[in-house]
Each structure stands twice: as structure tokens, then as C-alpha cells.
């Protein structure tokens, strides 16, 4: 009995640092948001209970729904470009190729450097006024005055391209890990039957990769819906709200934008908590819908 108590004491004391940190800095903030979504609270003065008023306000908040729409455009664009590209690269690198380790390391490199730092670099590259890319476009007469990369017309495309640059290597590696699990002899026997590389990819690789692919796309969807750091640094959601995604809109409800720059938005903690709840529901719903829609991938016939 004594021994039992001593063991339990030991277990709890070793678990304590992890448990207390998780509770206080991980769980409590979520509970905090749960409470304040029913309050009118601006961070000063007293918080007033207003029931579901924040949610009716969200219903009529066009700025928020615009940001939701932007999020879907951004996530859709990012996925459409990065998933096929990363799958293609993985499929190529998976078939023994000279220098494949070097190439793999190069493609994966963007994932180890800071998103925020690269966003600053991409700003100097894509800057419409004397940005590095436009200098070259003008120098080689590809475009007379350069392209307004961060202007209202192209800004969304630019942030998507930057996101794709950062994501492809990551998904390529995950696809590679999945491809490793497909037994080599399936390919060998199909080669004997006269299947070419494209047919092999279509009838063996894709179906066998199903479950892994389902997981990778799921991960990619959630990541794309959640991402806003690089957009924040690159465009601040502008110009005129063209690249404002929902998590960036949410951020601005809690904090003034970077470097204490003049923020157009008033910070509202109660309303922000409610918006946060709605965004979490949206991410959850998209995940569930995708999961049901993609069930077919999980069946290997």
C-alpha cells in the first residue's frame, strides 16, 4: 500500500509541469473565449452579458463573410496548385533517381525557414514599386511597367504563390512516406504485363495511395484554412481587404496590426471570441464534409 502511494506521488509529480502548463496556457484560454463570446467586452471597463447578440452581429458582418470567402479562395488555390505538384515530385523522386537525396532536401528546405521572414523577403521581391521581380520584368522587356503584384487585382494570386512555395516540400515528403509503403513487386509484375509508367501511376500508385492521400489533403485543408501569418506580413490583408482571410480578421479583433501601425479596426474581445467560435466551426465543418466526401479514397479494391 505504502509503495502504491509512493508510486502515485512520483507519477503525479513528474506529470505536474506538463499538466499545469497545458491547463493554464492551453485549456484555460479556450475556456476564456467560450465565456466571453456571450459578453460585450472591449478589454477595458466591465464585461456585459449580452447572450447571443454577438452571433446575430456576425450574421450581418459583411467584412467577416468576405474574409470567409477569401479564405476559401486562398485555401482552394493553394491546394489546387500544391497537392498535384507535390504528388508529382514525390512520384518522380520515388523511382530511384540519381541525386534524389539532394533534390529532396532542396524541395523540403522552405519548410524549415520562418514564414514571417520569408514574407518580408517576398515583399521585396513582389513589391509593385521597384520590387526585384518587376525590375527584371522591365529590364528584359517582358512587361513595360512591371506587374502590380500586390495590387487589388493580383494580390490574392501572389499570397497563394508564396503559400505554395512554402508548402510543396512538406506535402512532397508526406507523399514520399506514403509511396514507400507500396510494395515494389506490384510495379514489377505490371511492367511484365506491359503497363507503362503513366498507366502504373494511374492504376497502381493513385489507388494504393488512397488512405494516405486522404490524410494529407485533410491536413492541407486545415493548414490552409488556418494560415494567416505570411499574409499578415506580406499584405496586411490589403489592398482594400482583398487578401483578408478569416483568421487575420480575427487577429485584428484582438490586437492592433504589426509594429503598432495604425489599425483600422477597434479591438473587441467579446465579439472576437464569438468570431473565433464561428471560424472553428467552419474549419470543423469543412473537415467533416471533406472526410465524408473522400471516403472513396479509403477503399482499396
Amino acid at each position, binding site marked *: 500500500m505504502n509503495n502504491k502511494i509512493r508510486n502515485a506521488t512520483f507519477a503525479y509529480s513528474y506529470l505536474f509541469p506538463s499538466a499545469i502548463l497545458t491547463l493554464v496556457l492551453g485549456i484555460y484560454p479556450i475556456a476564456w473565449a467560450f465565456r466571453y463570446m456571450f459578453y460585450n467586452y472591449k478589454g477595458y471597463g466591465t464585461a456585459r452579458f449580452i447572450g447571443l447578440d454577438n452571433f446575430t452581429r456576425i450574421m450581418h458582418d459583411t467584412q467577416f463573410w468576405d474574409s470567409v470567402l477569401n479564405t476559401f479562395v486562398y485555401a482552394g488555390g493553394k491546394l489546387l496548385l500544391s497537392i498535384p505538384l507535390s504528388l508529382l515530385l514525390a512520384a518522380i523522386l520515388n523511382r530511384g533517381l540519381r541525386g534524389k537525396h539532394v533534390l529532396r532536401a*532542396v524541395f523540403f528546405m522552405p519548410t*524549415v525557414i520562418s514564414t514571417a521572414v520569408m514574407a518580408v523577403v517576398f515583399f521585396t521581391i513582389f513589391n509593385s514599386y521597384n520590387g*526585384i521581380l518587376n525590375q527584371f520584368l522591365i529590364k528584359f522587356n517582358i512587361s513595360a511597367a512591371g506587374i502590380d503584384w500586390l495590387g487589388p487585382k493580383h494580390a490574392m494570386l501572389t499570397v497563394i504563390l508564396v503559400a505554395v512555395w512554402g508548402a510543396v516540400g512538406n506535402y512532397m515528403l508526406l507523399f514520399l512516406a506514403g509511396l514507400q509503403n507500396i510494395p515494389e513487386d506490384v510495379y514489377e509484375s505490371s511492367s511484365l504485363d506491359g503497363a507503362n509508367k503513366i498507366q502504373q501511376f494511374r492504376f497502381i500508385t493513385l489507388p494504393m495511395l488512397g488512405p494516405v492521400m486522404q490524410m494529407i489533403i485533410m491536413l492541407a485543408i486545415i493548414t490552409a484554412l488556418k494560415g494567416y501569418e505570411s499574409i499578415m506580413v506580406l499584405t496586411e490583408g490589403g489592398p482594400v481587404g482583398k487578401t483578408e482571410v478569416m483568421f487575420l480578421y480575427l*487577429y485584428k479583433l484582438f490586437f492592433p496590426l504589426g509594429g503598432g501601425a495604425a489599425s483600422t479596426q477597434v479591438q473587441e474581445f467579446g465579439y472576437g471570441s464569438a468570431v*473565433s467560435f464561428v471560424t472553428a466551426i467552419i474549419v470543423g465543418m469543412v473537415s467533416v464534409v471533406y472526410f465524408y466526401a473522400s471516403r472513396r479514397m479509403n477503399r482499396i479494391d
Partner: protein
Amino acid sequence: MRIQKIFGNTVLWVFLLLFGLITLIPVIITILGSFKTNIELTTGATLLPDKWHLSNYSEAWEQANFSTYTLNSLIVALSAVVGTLLVASMAAYVVDRMDFFGKKIYVSMQAFTMFVAVGAVVLRPQFDLMVKLDLHSSLWGVILILISAHASIFFILLSFMKGIPKELDEAAKIDGSSLGRTFWRIILPLLGPGLGVGALFTFRGAWNEYLLPLVFTMTKPELQTLTVGLANLKYGISAASQTHYMMAGACLSILPILVAYVFANKSFMQMTAGSLKG
């Protein structure tokens, strides 16, 4: 047939090299750009610098406060690594080796924090809490919050822990070793590879973290890390005249992690690929 094959391979290699170039070019631009003058950067349209100016670095280091930023980044990243590994490995040890009331609750709590996507909302109560504890006027607030997000490292170390045979614990116990002694003297050294991967992962996350130090240093510029100081150059009034500092600063921030990556890219990749197998 052979012609076809050679043609196919050429197309393949052109595609691979082109994409490799696209991947590398922003980093190459940053490194080369850090040696250029501001005028060269904004009007030059050249790839290589005209003259290699090291002065960008010395000026960024002294005048643009990058010495402070670098020191802060190092303090934050190293403390986060040590703290995370300690907290997560101790928890992983008792969860894997012992049975106690509440184990299931604890593990689900860790999983829950990994999957809930609520964005910036949690930063606010975290910040207010640190103000109450008077930890917001140093980097301790940032470090503690980084350590608190150790769920993924906990699960990684747990899977490594499962690979260490339980007979070792039994043998140590028979030899009269206490549970604590067994952990520090036997298990932890054997956990080496797992700790290494966890350290790389935590270092990368903490070194590259932007939002957390941004929020905590809004009124305290002397606590800014590299990422925050660099992004603020872009927000600054004189942004246009500081492109050369941006490049030098970006280099300072990227190089340590790139060097680590060159030497340990297998571990970095193992991390990502391993997450798939769960």
C-alpha cells in the same frame, strides 16, 4: 524507343531542376542581396552584387538593433528547447511506464490542444495572464507559452519511449534504483535520438515564431526577436530606404536554421514523415 526514353528523361530533369531553382531563388536573392547597397537592390536588376558590401551586416548589427534581436531569439529558442524536452520527457516516462488515475484524461487533453483551431483568440488571455503574473516585461512569458505547446513533442517522445524495453526498468528496480534514478540515468540517455529530433523541431518552431513575440513586445522593443524586428522594418516609415537591412536581417535569421538543416536534414524530414505514421 531509346530516343523516347532519353527525351522523357530530359523533360523530367528540366522540370526537376526548374522547380529546384524556383525553390532556391528567394533564398539566393536574400543572401546575395544582403551584400548590395540599397540603390542596387531597388533599381539594379542584377543578380550578383556590384561590390560585396559587408557593411550591411555591421550596420544592421549595430544601428538597426539586430544584435539585440539575435540575442533574444537565441534566449527564447534555447530556453524553449530545454524546457519542452524536460517537461515532455518526464510526462512521457510516467504515461508509458506507469498506471495512475487520470492518465486517459491527460492524454486526451494533450490531443485536444493539438487539434483545436481557434487562431489568435488564445493569445489574448495568455497575454493578460502573463501581465497578472508580472511575466510580460521579460521574455519569460513568451518562453513559458512556447513550452506549454509541447503536445506534439510529448507524443513523439512517447513513441520513442515505447521502443525502450521495459526489462531495463525491471532490472534497475531489482538493483535497487528508484523510479527517478532510473529515468535520469537509464531512460533519458537511451531517449537520445528522440530528444534530438524533438530539440530540432522545437528549435525550429521557437526560432521562427512570429505572432507570440510580436504580441508580447508591442510596447517593449528591447525584447523583440529577429522575426519581429525584421517584420517591423517593413512596417516602418522608412521601409523603402531599408531594403538592404531587410536582406541582411533576413540572412541572420535564416542562416542558423539553414546550417542546422544542411547537417541534419534527415532528422528534419524524419519528423515530418513520421507524423504520417502516427
